[in-house]
């Protein structure tokens, strides 16, 4: 049996076993004491999980071993992918592989749910396992195990090379980010299953206890996944940002918002007995929104290029097949209708307990407001991201709201969230005496005011510089271009101050709680993180400075923002070749010596403060296809010099350009180029195929070297020239290495035919020679980002806090459980 047959078999057995498992768990509902049934149902689940693991293993094997007889391997890996981690990580770089990753995590988490659910096991598991069934069905309809020749019947044979992993994915985050975020996604199913089971069996209160640790786990892991994605984007995409409100980013953000809403609601329900209806709603909402997001990012709605051919998202997934899409649609509509339908059906019965009452100075009210704000944020982000879907239903040109939309709308929401965060530590449940509250709030408030005043001064001082350095593109995308600069500065100061207040208030309380009951401080710690995050986003965006410069080789250093930049050199073979050269090194480091303010940038001076920064320049394998040679898809990777207070972010602004030595000659002419003599004998023209210039070069003390630089017409498979959209033929120039003339590093000198006049036959030649080396122009975007580390710190503190809470609630549940075992008649609150 081949590995592909094994994988297909595993998925079929997964589908069958999921149906059997659902049946067995349902059967146990009426016979809860039957031990045999218990063992068989769990065994059946184990078999289901094993099937899914086997399918994943088979796909991993195919991708890792580059089994090109399978289409998936051809699509997602290549011989050049040598790093073992990437070779394996390529497994989840495609549609089907990421579905499998989702299924694998669902199966693993399912074991915990199954064995730890206690009396809920039989109620929760049928709902839970049904998703695994659906995933198996999708993978059957859109199998990753299809043979290449089956999928592409017109092809003459199995290829020996694959298309490779997108270079932007060839990053260590590729090995860790997708598994993390998919763990988060998969775990969203637990609150959904619990909530639906609670609605079906009318158990509106106790499910909140059982599901609490899972809701925290999901929030923490999704938060961590979002952080990794943002950091990855910051590190590789080169636009010195970490969040762009891209639909694919949002698709993991809105389920997270639903989950932290659930966490807060559950906290209220556990502490005060309120919010039972809200929690059942948000429990259903999280997984449903994830399905919406999955559908959005995979249905092709974002990749449908509309009238402009623009992709609405930078993270384009290839389109899912039609039949796979139908199962996705059934899943989305099915789970949403069943979940929300049950909720509506039971709404009247769910006990209502208003804990807020008229006491607005109470923790109850703060939580109530927080839940509303988070749900509204969730709704805004969901609606904004799904706009392309709605528009496509009405056959409207696909459009997505710009980032400025989210920035505008989120601004007041985040400000209100920050105020709530700053106040909640000083509020008690039920009611707090107004004077006591104000007395407790006074000190953090005063300190924040001082901080805010400092921030205001900073903004005032920095703002002149800001106006000068911000280009309109950045202005357009930054937060407040819709209001006057004065209000803009004020809003920045206000939001920054509120973020600081939130961090301060919560850290004061966290410190107090940590000393008494460390595990109970998780919530406060998470709040500190959110405050720090808000502050970080505001400060790093407001005080960011960007300027574009061009470093010219041999032209001396340039100084920007007090930093001096000096081009040192370039690694690889690139310096003397052009990017389309087949010998081209795909991993060029452009080495730049940077001297910070206060350092000595002169060549002879003390360079102890200086450091090297190496932005990289990547051109994918050029020779795959003649068409791509005309238009190589280059990528730039920025270099980041991190320090505690700021990052210096260096990215290529556009493709580095070579200044070669240019020579214009008529047939029979000759000219001196430094120590060299260049002779142009005659043109060699084959219309619609090739044209060249027969030349010679004489170096001092050497025999003349014949050279023939030329250019070629691009042709299709039938031999006809390919025209571009303007109707002109596509012609590309070739680098001609000059074998006798080599640079110190062994690279040959290069000649390029830049143009050849069809009537006069005059030739325009470009040279790079050992004594006349071409020089580089490096266009750089220099960005100074102060306090960006607050952003990363904030998220990590927050995740840490959520994880502490999770441990706390798990221990609490175990204690409750043991107490209940000891005293079976103990009445619940």
């Amino acid at each position, binding site marked *: 049996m081949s590995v592909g047959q094994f994988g297909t078999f595993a998925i079929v057995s997964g589908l069958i076993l999921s149906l059997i498992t659902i049946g067995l768990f349902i059967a146990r509902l009426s016979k809860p004491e039957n031990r045999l049934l218990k063992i068989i149902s769990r065994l059946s689940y184990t078999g289901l999980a094993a099937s899914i693991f086997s399918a994943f293993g088979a796909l991993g094997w195919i991708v890792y071993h580059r089994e090109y007889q399978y289409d998936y391997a051809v699509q997602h890996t290549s011989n050049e992918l040598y790093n073992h981690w990437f070779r394996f990580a390529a497994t989840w770089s495609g549609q089907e592989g990421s579905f499998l990753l989702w299924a694998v995590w669902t199966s693993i988490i399912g074991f915990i749910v199954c064995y730890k659910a206690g009396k809920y096991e039989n109620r929760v598991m049928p709902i839970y396992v049904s998703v695994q069934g659906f995933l198996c069905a999708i993978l059957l309809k859109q199998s990753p195990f299809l043979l290449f020749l089956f999928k592409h019947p017109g092809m003459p044979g199995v290829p020996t090379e694959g*298309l490779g992993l997108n270079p932007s994915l060839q990053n260590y985050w590729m090995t860790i980010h997708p598994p993390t975020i998919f763990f988060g996604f998969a775990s969203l199913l637990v609150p959904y299953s619990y909530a639906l089971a609670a609605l079906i069996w009318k158990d509106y209160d106790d499910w909140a206890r059982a599901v609490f640790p899972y809701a925290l786990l999901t929030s923490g892991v999704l938060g961590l996944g979002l952080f990794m994605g943002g950091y990855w984007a910051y590190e590789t995409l080169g636009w010195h940002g970490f969040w762009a409100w891209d639909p694919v980013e949002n698709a993991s953000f809105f389920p997270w918002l639903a989950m932290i809403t659930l966490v807060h609601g559950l906290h209220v329900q556990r502490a005060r007995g309120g919010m039972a209806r809200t929690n059942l709603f948000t429990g259903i909402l999280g997984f449903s929104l994830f399905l919406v997001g999955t559908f959005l990012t995979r249905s092709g709605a974002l990749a449908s290029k509309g009238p402009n051919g623009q992709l609405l998202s930078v993270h384009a997934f290839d389109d899912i097949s039609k039949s796979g899409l139908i199962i996705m649609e059934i899943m989305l509509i099915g789970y949403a209708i069943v979940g929300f339908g049950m909720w509506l059906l039971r709404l009247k019965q769910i006990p209502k307990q208003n804990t807020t009452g008229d006491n607005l100075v109470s923790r109850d009210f703060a939580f109530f*407001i927080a839940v509303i704000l988070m749900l509204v944020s969730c709704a805004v982000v969901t609606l904004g991201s799904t706009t392309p879907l709605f528009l496509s239903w009405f056959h409207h040109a696909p459009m997505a709201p710009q980032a400025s939309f989210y920035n505008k709308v989120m601004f007041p929401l985040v400000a209100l969230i920050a105020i709530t965060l700053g106040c909640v530590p000083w509020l008690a449940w039920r009611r707090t005496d107004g004077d006591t509250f104000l007395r407790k709030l006074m000190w953090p408030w005063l300190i924040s005011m001082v901080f805010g005043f400092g921030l205001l001064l900073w903004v005032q001082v920095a703002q002149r510089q800001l106006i000068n350095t911000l280009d309109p593109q950045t202005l357009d995308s930054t937060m407040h271009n819709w209001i006057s600069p004065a209000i803009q500065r004020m809003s920045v100061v206000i939001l920054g101050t509120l973020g600081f207040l939130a961090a301060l208030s919560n850290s004061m309380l966290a410190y107090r709680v940590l000393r008494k009951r460390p595990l109970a401080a998780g919530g406060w710690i998470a709040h500190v993180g959110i405050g720090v995050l808000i502050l970080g986003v505001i400060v790093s965006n407001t005080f960011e400075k960007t300027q574009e410069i061009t470093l010219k080789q041999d032209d001396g250093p340039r100084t920007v923002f007090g930093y001096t930049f000096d081009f040192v050199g370039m690694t690889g073979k690139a310096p003397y070749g052009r990017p389309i050269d087949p010998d081209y090194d795909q991993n060029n480091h452009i080495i730049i010596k940077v001297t910070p303010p206060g350092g000595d940038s002169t060549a002879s001076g003390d360079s102890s403060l200086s450091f090297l920064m190496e932005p990289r320049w990547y051109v994918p394998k050029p020779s795959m296809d003649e068409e791509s040679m005309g238009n190589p898809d280059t990528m730039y990777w920025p270099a980041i010099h991190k320090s505690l207070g700021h990052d210096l972010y260096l990215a290529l602004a556009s493709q580095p350009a070579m200044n070669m030595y240019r020579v214009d000659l008529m047939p029979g002419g000759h000219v001196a180029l430094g120590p060299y003599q260049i002779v142009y004998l005659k043109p060699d023209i084959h219309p619609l195929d090739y044209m060249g210039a027969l030349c010679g070069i004489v170096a001092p003390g050497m025999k003349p070297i014949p050279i023939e630089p030329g250019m070629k017409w691009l042709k299709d498979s039938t031999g006809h020239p390919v025209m571009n959209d303007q109707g002109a033929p596509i012609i590309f120039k070739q680098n001609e290495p000059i074998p006798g003339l080599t640079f110190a590093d062994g690279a040959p000198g290069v000649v390029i035919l830049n143009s050849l006049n069809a009537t006069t036959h005059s030739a325009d030649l470009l040279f790079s020679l050992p004594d006349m080396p071409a020089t580089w122009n490096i266009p750089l975007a220099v960005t100074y980002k102060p306090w960006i580390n607050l952003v990363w710190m904030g998220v990590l503190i927050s995740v840490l806090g959520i994880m502490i809470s999770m441990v706390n609630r798990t221990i609490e549940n175990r204690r409750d459980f043991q107490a209940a075992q000891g005293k079976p008649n103990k009445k619940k609150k």
Partner: protein
Amino acid sequence: MNKAVLIGLLIVSGAMGFTLWAFSSSMTPYVDIHQAEQMGTRVQVRGKILHNTAHWSFTKHTLNFMLEDSHKDEIEVVYHGPKPESFDTAPETAATGIVQKQPDGTLVLESSSMVVKCPSKYDDETKSALRGAYGKA
């Protein structure tokens, strides 16, 4: 109805109104050049880039070029911002901006963002790449 619910409703309705307003101002309609000249608001204009008219100023960070729409109307676009990477090879673009009258009376689309269509980049990428793979095999 108690105060808490009242405040909650206030927040929700306020946010909804604000969202709608922000939404309508963020979505810019696609129009042709004639309409764009009439409207005077932020619009998206789609058309062919007339490459021989393109001029990129590195010091001012502006890109000037003529845009021709499907009715063969032409308008000068002044795009402010970094030059899009694939501009030189792109046949078409959609520029977002406002049509403004210059001192000399000509109408210019002052654009702050531009979406560029790449030639053949997404057309049947797999197939053509596979063809290449055979060439090598």
